[in-house]
């Protein structure tokens, strides 16, 4: 065991998704299997975790700081936190061992900031968080994503799409970290307003989220303090869904719960394979 990982696995038989009879061992195994795909997104970022030590049917909690007992080999990033008025030490998941250590702590959900610790004020991802308001659901969010893609296509920008694992859809653009969050936020806001004008079911302002059946393009998510559920992160829902990158061609046929802990590790194609090779120009 020591040869393969520095992590000491504990309580492997603890129920995590009781309805599906999944235990902590299954969660760790999941993260082992998707590690090659998820690590590139976690590397160099201050991670936020949602931990469920007693499984998804019990209370979970957000964790930003490195918890007591963090092993010395885990990379941490110390930063002054305005809200807490103290230096906070964040966990940076650069390698497999750190990922497995987090999984062993029942960190079911991994949330990543849109910027790296090298300069947290300069995002390398632009996020269009498409959030449907009931009765709108995944179907409407997908429709909005397709329309958004056309709009970005017109601008010569190549976006990537993933499910949120709940009912939303995330459309991402990878950029060089040269813009401020204010700029990326305004970029998203601008396109959102344009779409909202053309398509009645799309709204661009948080004040409109109470309108039933709409899909909000939530531009304020582009901020230094916000995080996005990482691609391939599990979700803490009964069905053990996964926030899953999908090919644009497959997007219209995606149904809720299609991607989950059982089938995502076996996905043959990585639709985001080229995302790092092609930073997009959004100016």
């Amino acid at each position, binding site marked *: *065991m020591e040869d*393969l990982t520095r992590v000491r696995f504990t309580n492997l038989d603890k129920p995590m998704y009781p309805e599906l009879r999944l235990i902590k*061992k299954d969660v760790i*195994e999941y993260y082992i299997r998707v590690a090659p795909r998820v690590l590139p997104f976690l590397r160099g970022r201050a991670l936020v975790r949602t931990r469920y030590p007693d499984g998804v049917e019990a209370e979970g909690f957000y964790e930003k700081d490195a918890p007591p007992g963090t092993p010395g080999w885990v990379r941490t990033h110390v930063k002054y936190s305005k809200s807490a008025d103290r230096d906070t030490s964040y966990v940076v998941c650069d390698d497999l061992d750190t990922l*497995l250590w987090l999984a062993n702590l029942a960190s079911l959900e991994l949330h990543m900031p849109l910027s790296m610790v090298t300069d947290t004020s300069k995002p390398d991802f632009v996020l269009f968080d498409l959030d449907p308001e009931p009765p709108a659901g995944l179907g409407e969010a997908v429709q909005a994503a397709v329309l958004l893609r056309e709009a970005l296509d017109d601008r010569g920008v190549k976006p990537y799409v993933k499910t949120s694992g709940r009912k939303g859809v995330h459309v991402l653009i990878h950029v060089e970290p040269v813009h401020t969050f204010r700029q990326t936020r305004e970029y998203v806001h601008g396109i959102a307003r344009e779409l909202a004008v053309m398509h009645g079911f799309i709204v661009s302002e948080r004040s409109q989220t109470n309108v039933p059946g709409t899909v909000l393009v939530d531009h304020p998510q582009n901020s230094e303090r916000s995080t996005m559920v990482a691609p391939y992160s599990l979700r803490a829902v009964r069905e053990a869904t996964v926030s899953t990158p999908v090919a644009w061609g497959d997007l219209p046929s995606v149904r809720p719960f299609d991607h989950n802990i059982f089938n995502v590790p076996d996905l043959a194609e990585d639709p985001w394979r080229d995302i790092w090779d092609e930073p997009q120009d959004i100016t």
Partner: protein
Amino acid sequence: MSVLKGKPSTRSVWTGRISIGLVNVPVKAYTMIKDQSFSFKYVRRDDACPLKYERVCTLDREVVPWSEVGQAVEVRKDEYVVFSKEELDALRPESNKKISLRKFVPLSQVDRVFFDKSYVLAPDKSGDSYGLLLKAFKEKGLAGVGTFTLRTKEYPVLVYHYRDSLVLTTLRYSDEVVDPRSYEDLGKVEEPSREELDIALKIMENLTGEFDSTEFKDTFKERVEELVEQKMKGEVIAVEEPETEEVRELMSALRDTLAQLQKT
């Protein structure tokens, strides 16, 4: 015959007499059961300074000397009825140094769940009367039922012949043993199908054998002793955790992933 490997004691734990009617036989009792469980000493980890327990007042944290310690029963929360040593001694059974056997029963008739601890009864002073008693027990094949007071507690006991000696086994009181049927879980046991039962019976038949207690060993104790040896020689102990099925599966997945990560 089962193999018994416990080391005999040098000192008896009780002396007195077995009495049957008017016959009195002086005997001494030796421990027959030797607990070999491993026990550690508590120390401060850094400098191995041994620790001791102290009786401390829960209110003022002062250490209370034995001379001031009393015994009490908590009748309600934080309300105690205190007894003096004399009061308790008066309640305790008198150690009359006698095992009175009032009845004789076939040993097999005594439910084995009552059996607690066994002692070897050896002749004290003259062995003549002991020899007589032993012979009588051996020929009759019965166990004598009586009571026996060891230190401050009275036990029901059986006395019987075992390997050319008299053995005394203390018994549990009937309110100390739980009827398995009083556990609710047992009400939920389902009837198996005939096929399943046949398979189970077949397996049992194939595995039928003789009980041999030497098949079992307290490996924890042995391994601690090995480690003590190593530590005394100044060897560094590598902690090895047993791999469970779950860990094995994780390691196999890990091997695949590590190979994959190396490729990229």
